[in-house]
């Protein structure tokens, strides 16, 4: 049986993953920082309920993802502005996003940020090395639905990362 890890160890091991998940859902850097803090606070509060049935990385990712989605829903005043529809792509990236998109990593992040929520969820987890089966369990979806969404998301990402024609 695995023992419960120390919170400080969790932060140092998974802080970049949580930061990336939060940055995927919030483009404003200050708000993304607040969101990451919220996620870690939620992880700290939930830690006593962790059981070794799921890996600690899954546990951390799940809570961070939940916080981020909840934050996105709140910010977008669901369902009016950012409904979970497959065809919604944000076409107005803010200036700081454009600045972050200077390198490959930035352009991938910018592309992920522009994905509709239903694609962004599995993609972020896939990029964090979760298997499709783990993603399905984590999102409460069937493996088939996850496979379909990942495929569509990959195509969308490829299009979004294409440099625009001059």
């Amino acid at each position, binding site marked *: 049986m695995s023992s419960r890890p120390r919170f400080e160890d969790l932060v140092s091991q998974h802080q970049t993953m949580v*930061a*990336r998940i939060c940055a995927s859902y919030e483009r404003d850097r200050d708000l993304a920082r607040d969101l990451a803090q919220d996620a*870690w606070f939620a992880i700290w509060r939930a830690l006593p309920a962790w059981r070794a049935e799921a890996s600690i990385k899954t546990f951390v990712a799940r809570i961070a993802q939940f916080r981020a989605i909840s934050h996105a829903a709140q910010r977008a005043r669901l369902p009016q502005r950012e409904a*979970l529809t497959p065809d919604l792509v944000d076409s107005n990236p803010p200036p700081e996003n454009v600045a972050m998109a200077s390198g490959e990593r930035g352009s991938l992040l910018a592309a992920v940020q522009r994905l509709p929520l239903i694609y962004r969820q599995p993609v972020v987890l*896939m990029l964090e090395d979760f298997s499709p089966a783990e993603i399905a369990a984590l999102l409460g979806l069937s493996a088939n639905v996850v496979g379909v969404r990942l495929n569509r998301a990959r195509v969308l990402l*490829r299009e979004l990362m294409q440099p625009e024609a001059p």
Partner: protein
Amino acid sequence: MNIENEQEEWKTMKTQWKSTSVAEMLMTQQLRWGLRLRMLGSWIYLALEAAAFVMLIVLGIVQAAMGHAGVATVFIVLALIFMASSLWARRLSLRGASASLLELIELAIRRARRSVRMAWANYFMTVVSIAAVLVLYLFPFGDPSAAYHDGARLAGAMVIFAVYAIGVGVYHAYARRRVRRFLALRAQFASRAEEG
């Protein structure tokens, strides 16, 4: 595109995704202090609540030792009512399956509902406290020169109770808004969960 190419594409994206960026490092370094303060605040809130119960019981024991049985009874009864209210508010189970995001949303709804109960428990405790202060002021309990027989202090206590009740009202509104938000989120997820 065949499966091998798809996997290669994911592999390339994963490598890009994980390459460190200065912005990210800054973000994670800067959140530590705020996080620690929030954790501390959470402990302090619990500690204050426990301290309030203990203080009321100690006051009751002191009054009983001084031979003021009536006052002692009021303090002990207050402490017991407060403890019962707090337990009632907290008894909503927050444990449960949280294997998927939908289940986490359920958990968040339960947490938000518990916050609403906490607000109701606090309204109740405020009303009981006002009643207790009035009883101590109006009836000839204990020492006639004691603070609880002083009219100016009674007025001060009422102002504190009013401010506290307003604070609870604000928290109550916030908690209800959270319940509504998570219910909306659950409806969104439930209706879209099986869409391809």
